[in-house]
């Protein structure tokens, strides 16, 4: 009789435990962000590139120009509404001493349909937008064919990377950067690298 009792307790407990585990799993799922993506490049060096400057004619940037400083790479475009929201905050970060390099992501251009790209029209558009929101960028790299974006594992805009002075990618954030995400994700690593309080 006692062994039967024990068995029925077991038969009751096992499904209950499975149910509770499932509850914990699903509850955690409520707060996970399916859009949170991580590039496969974390912990690796910046991919090699050689791309033109967005605003200045005949000027170009390569991965070697970026060595020796801690900086953010911010992927953006004038076509991206979330970037418009993010730009004033990034400008504030620049005022606090964070170096931000823009990676301008062009998404509409298709060489098969559009012919030659009208860079002047884009420059005017960019100047207008940055005049409204403030300019957070040291400079902008122009990635017309999305080749660097592809090598970084960028799926859209805005996205932000934190890179250290050795050129190693430490963080990748998809979506806008604001006070909350900066404090939670970037500030701890950044202050550690710069050894300054922000």
């Amino acid at each position, binding site marked *: 009789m006692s062994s039967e009792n024990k068995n029925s307790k077991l038969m009751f407990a096992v499904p209950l435990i499975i149910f509770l585990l499932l509850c914990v799993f699903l509850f955690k799922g409520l707060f996970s962000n*399916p859009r949170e993506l991580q*590039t496969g490049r974390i912990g690796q060096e910046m991919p090699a590139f050689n791309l033109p400057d967005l605003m200045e004619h005949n000027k170009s940037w390569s991965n070697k120009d970026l060595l020796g400083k801690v900086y953010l790479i911010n992927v953006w475009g004038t076509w991206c509404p979330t970037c418009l929201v993010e730009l004033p905050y990034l400008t504030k970060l620049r005022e606090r001493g964070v170096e931000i390099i823009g990676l301008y992501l062009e*998404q509409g251009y298709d060489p098969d349909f559009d012919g030659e790209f009208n860079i002047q029209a884009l420059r005017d558009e960019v100047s207008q937008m940055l005049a409204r929101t403030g300019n957070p960028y040291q400079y902008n790299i122009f990635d017309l064919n999305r080749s660097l974006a592809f*090598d*970084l*594992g*960028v*799926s*859209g805009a805005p996205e932000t990377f934190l890179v250290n002075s050795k050129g190693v990618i430490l963080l990748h954030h998809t979506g806008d950067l604001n006070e909350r995400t900066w404090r939670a994700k970037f500030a701890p690593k950044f202050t550690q690298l710069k050894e300054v309080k922000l």
Partner: protein
Amino acid sequence: MKYFLFILFMGFTTAVFAVEEHHTFANEKQAELFKQLSLELRCPKCQNQNIADSNAVVAKDLRDKVIELVKLNKSKDFIVDYMIDRYGYFVHYKPPVTASTLVLWVVPILFVLFGFGSVVFRQKKSAIQQKWSDKDEAQLTKLITKYQDNSVEEKQELGQ
């Protein structure tokens, strides 16, 4: 007859294909590899679409890159690793077996084992409970005779 033909032709369907992009590969093997990969690689922008299915800019970029690499005669593993290097494990629909993904393989097996285990366990338990003693046998005979007698009486009652 008209209706018969109508119903008969309803049994046939003609396949209609809408092709947006057309790629030419050097051989059948490359074309097959591209098809396989575009179904297996996942669009990083959209939640549950492969890159063949999605029209997102990044999905098109991935397709173009796959085409480029396939035409360079790169192997399937090379191309998949190339994408994982950039977009993480998210980009491939077949996750690798690691400590954190092991649960995907282990849980279904445990489920089946647990199910079989409980069936066997319950059967054994009920087999033990159904012991048949002489006392049960005597009880059975008693009950049979009792109800047989009853039924005889009932028949007699009906016969009256």
